[in-house]
C-alpha cells in the first residue's frame, strides 16, 4: 500500500479507480449498461478524441497548448472529402496527403511559435480560425464520402468475444496511444519534451534541441489531429466544416484529467486514455439515463466532472501530506 501511495503514477491509479467506480455506478442503475459493447463503444466513439489527446499530451507536456486541433480535424475531413468526391483521387493517396498536410500545418505553427517567440495559445488560436475558415472556403455544406475504402473502414466490425466488436478506428487509436507511450518514455525526443516543460531556459542551457523539438511537437499534434480527422471521416463518412467543434477543449480536459499538468513537464501520455474514457463515460451515463433535459445534461456533466476532479485531487493531496 505504501509503495503504491508513493508511486509517481499514483494520481493515474486514482483516475482508473474512479473510472471503475463510475462504471459500476452505471451498471447498477441502468439496464444494458454492463455489456462489453458499451465499454467498447467508449473506444469506438472516442477514438478520434484519444488520438488528438495523445498529440495534445505532448504539446502540454512541453509547456505549450494547441487550440487548432479541432479545426484541423474538420479541415482534414473536408479536404479528404473534396479530394475523394470532387477530385477523385485514390483513397490511399488522399490519406497520405491529408496526414502530411496536418503535420505540416502543425509544424508551421511550431515554426511561428519558435521563430517569432510567440505564445502558443495565440498562434494556435489563429491557426484554429484559419483551418476552420479554410473548410468553409472549400464548401459550407457537408460532403458525403462514398469511397469504398472509407466505407469499408467505416463499417468493418472487428469481432472480439460474445458478439462484441471494435472498429478499425478504435484499433488505430489504441495503436497511436501505444506509439505515443513509446515515444514519450523511450526516445530522446520524448524526454526533451519533458525537459522543455520542466524549464525551457534550462533545456536551452543544457544544449537540448529546443527549437527542433518544439516544432516537432506541434507537427506531431497536427499529425494526430489529421489522423483523428481521418478516423472521424471513417466514423461519419462525411467532410464538414462544423465537425469537431470544441474538440480542442475536450482534448485538453482529457489530458489534464489524466493527470498531466497544464503548465508542462509533469504527467503521462497514458493519462490521455483515462481522461478520454472519463469524458466518454459521463456522456454515456447521461445517454443511458435519458431523462435529463438539455440544461440538466450540462449541469450533470459539470457536476460529474467536479466530483471526479475533486476526489482525484483530494486523494493526491492526502498522499503528499501523509
Amino acid at each position, binding site marked *: 500500500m505504501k509503495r503504491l501511495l508513493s508511486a509517481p503514477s499514483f494520481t493515474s491509479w486514482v483516475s482508473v479507480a474512479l473510472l471503475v467506480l463510475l462504471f459500476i455506478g452505471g451498471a447498477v442503475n441502468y439496464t444494458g449498461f454492463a455489456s462489453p459493447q458499451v465499454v467498447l463503444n467508449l473506444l469506438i466513439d472516442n477514438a478520434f478524441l484519444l488520438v488528438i489527446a495523445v498529440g495534445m499530451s505532448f504539446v502540454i507536456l512541453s509547456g505549450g497548448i494547441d487550440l487548432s486541433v479541432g479545426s484541423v480535424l474538420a479541415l482534414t475531413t473536408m479536404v479528404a472529402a473534396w479530394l475523394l468526391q470532387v477530385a477523385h483521387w485514390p483513397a490511399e493517396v488522399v490519406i497520405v496527403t491529408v496526414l502530411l498536410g496536418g503535420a505540416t500545418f502543425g509544424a508551421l505553427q511550431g515554426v511561428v511559435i519558435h521563430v517569432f517567440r510567440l505564445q502558443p495559445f495565440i498562434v494556435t488560436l489563429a491557426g484554429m480560425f484559419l483551418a476552420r475558415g479554410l473548410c468553409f472556403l472549400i464548401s459550407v455544406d457537408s460532403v458525403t464520402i462514398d469511397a469504398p475504402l472509407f466505407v469499408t473502414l467505416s463499417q468493418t466490425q472487428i469481432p472480439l468475444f460474445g458478439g462484441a466488436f471494435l472498429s478499425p478506428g478504435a484499433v488505430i487509436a489504441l495503436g497511436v496511444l501505444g506509439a505515443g507511450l513509446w515515444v514519450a518514455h523511450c526516445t530522446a525526443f520524448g524526454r526533451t519534451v519533458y525537459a522543455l516543460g520542466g524549464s525551457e531556459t534550462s533545456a536551452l542551457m543544457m544544449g537540448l*534541441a529546443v527549437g527542433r523539438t518544439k516544432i516537432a511537437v506541434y507537427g506531431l499534434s497536427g499529425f494526430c489531429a489529421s489522423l483523428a480527422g481521418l478516423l472521424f471521416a471513417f466514423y461519419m463518412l462525411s467532410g464538414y466544416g462544423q465537425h469537431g467543434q470544441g474538440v480542442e477543449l475536450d482534448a485538453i480536459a482529457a489530458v489534464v484529467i489524466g493527470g498531466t499538468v497544464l503548465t508542462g513537464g509533469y504527467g503521462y501520455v497514458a493519462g490521455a486514455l483515462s481522461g478520454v474514457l472519463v469524458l466518454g463515460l459521463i456522456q454515456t451515463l447521461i445517454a443511458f439515463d435519458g431523462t435529463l433535459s438539455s440544461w440538466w445534461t450540462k449541469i450533470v456533466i459539470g457536476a460529474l466532472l467536479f466530483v471526479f476532479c475533486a476526489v482525484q485531487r483530494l486523494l493526491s493531496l492526502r498522499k503528499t501530506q501523509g
Partner: protein
Amino acid sequence: MSTAPVLELTGIHKSFTGVKALADVRLRLFPGEVHALMGQNGAGKSTLIKVLTGLYQPDAGAITLDGQPTAPKRTEDAQDLGIRTVYQEVNLCPNLSVAENICAGRFPRKWGRIDWTTVHAEARRVLAQMDLDIDVTAPLSRYSLSVQQMVAIARALRISARVLILDEPTSSLDDAAVQRLFTVLRRLREQGLAILFVTHFLDQTYALADRITVMRNGETEGEYLAADLSRLALVNKMVGAPPDQQPSRLDSQAAGTGTPVLKAQGLGRRGALHPLDLELRRGEVLGLAGLLGSGRTEAARLLFGADTADAGHVETDGHQGRWHSPRQAIAAGIAFCSEDRKHEGAILDLSVRDNILLALQARAGLRLVMTREQQQALADDYIKRLGIKTASAETPIGQLSGGNQQKALFARWLATEPAVLILDEPTRGIDVRAKEDLMDAVRALAHKEDGSGMSILFISSELPEVLHCSDRVVVLRDRRAAGEYRRGELDERSVLEVIAAEPAATEVVTDV
C-alpha cells in the same frame, strides 16, 4: 604549458539595453590548465561565459578554437565543439530524474530506444566520482540545491570534452565535496583539458588554478600566472585598489547574551529533521554547521514555517505553537533568506525596488507602506549600503548578476527589521570583499550597544565563515543536533571532527 591556447576570445563586447556588460574582453584557455576567472559581483564573468557558449551573441569580438574562428550560435553548437559548461545558477530540469538530467542530449541507446539501465548506471558512475550515492531515478526537485549543483557538474563531466567551464560550481558545496570535485578536475587537467573556473573563494583559486584572469567592470584587468599573483594583489586588482592596500577590518564586539527570543522545542518533521531543541537569544549570532544533508536547511524551514513541523513547537515573544505558514512566522518577527534564490527568493521579472519592498509590503497587507518616493529612497539606500551593482532600482532583478541578486534579497529581509533573521547560505555567490562586508553587517546587526540587536541564525557551508561570525555554533549531523559550542571553544579542525564523528549520511533518509 606554453602551447597555443585551445580557445581564445578577443575584443568581446556585449551590452544589454542600457547596460554595458562586456567591453573589449580577452580570455585565453590553454590545454592542461585550470584557468580561474575572478572578479567582483557584476564584473561580467557569467556574461562572458554565456557569450562563449552561444547563449548570447557578442556585439563584437572574435572567438577562435584551435586557431579557427568560430561563432557558436546555440548551446548545442558549443557542445558539438567540445565545450561543456556548468552555468552559475543550477540550470537543470527539476521534473526529470537525476539520471536524465545527467544524460539528456546524449542518451545511451539500444535498438533505437533509450537504454534506461545504462542511463542509470552511467549516472551512478559519474556521481560516484564525487562520492554521491543517491537514487538517480528520483526527480531532481527532490534534492537540495547542493545535490543539484553536484548533478549539474556530473552532467558536464560525463562526456569527455576539450574545454570545461564551471561558473561558481562550488557555491553551495561543503569542503569535502569541493575536495572531491578538485580531485576530479586535477585528473581532467592531466588529461589535457582546458578548464575555466569561476569562484569567489581565494583558497580554491590558489588550490587549483594555474592561471588567473581578473575582470573588473566588464573589462579584462589582466591575465596572470597564479604563482606570480599574491592574494592581496588579486583582491586589489579585482576591486581596483592600489596593489598593496590592506582591507580594513571592523573589529567585532563581544557576544550578546540577551534573553531568548526564539525557542524551538522538539521541533521535527518526519523524513526531514529529528526533533530539535534550539534557543536563539537577543543580539546573538547562532551558527549552524554541518555537512551537506545534515538538516540545516530543514531546520531553518521549520523555524520559519516554510514547511510545517509534525512534532514539537516554536516559542517566541507571545506565541507558542507550530507555524502553519511563513506569514505567521513573519508576523512574529522572523525573517528567512532562502539558499535557493532562483526558486525561492527572487521574483525575476520585477524590479529591484519591488523585490526589496516585497516582504515589508506583504507583512503590511494591501495598504501601501510607503509612497513611491519613499520606496525609491529605501531601495537606493540598500543598493548603496550593500553595494548592489545595478543600473537602477527599476532594473528587473533577473538582469542582475547572481551575487547582486543575493544582496538584494538580503535587503528584502533587512527592510522588515526582524527580531530574528535566518540566513541560509547568505554568502552564496558573493565576492570576497562583499562577503566580508556582509559578515560585518551581520555582526553589526546583532551586536548593538543597547542590546536591541537582531538575533541571527547563520547557516553556511563555509566553516570559517560560521566560526568567524557566530557567537555560538550548533553542529548538526544526520539531521539532529550533535553539539553546541560557544565562540572560541572550537576551531575549524575540531568542528570538522565533531561533524565527521560518524560517517556522514550518504543515503537518502526517507523515514526517521
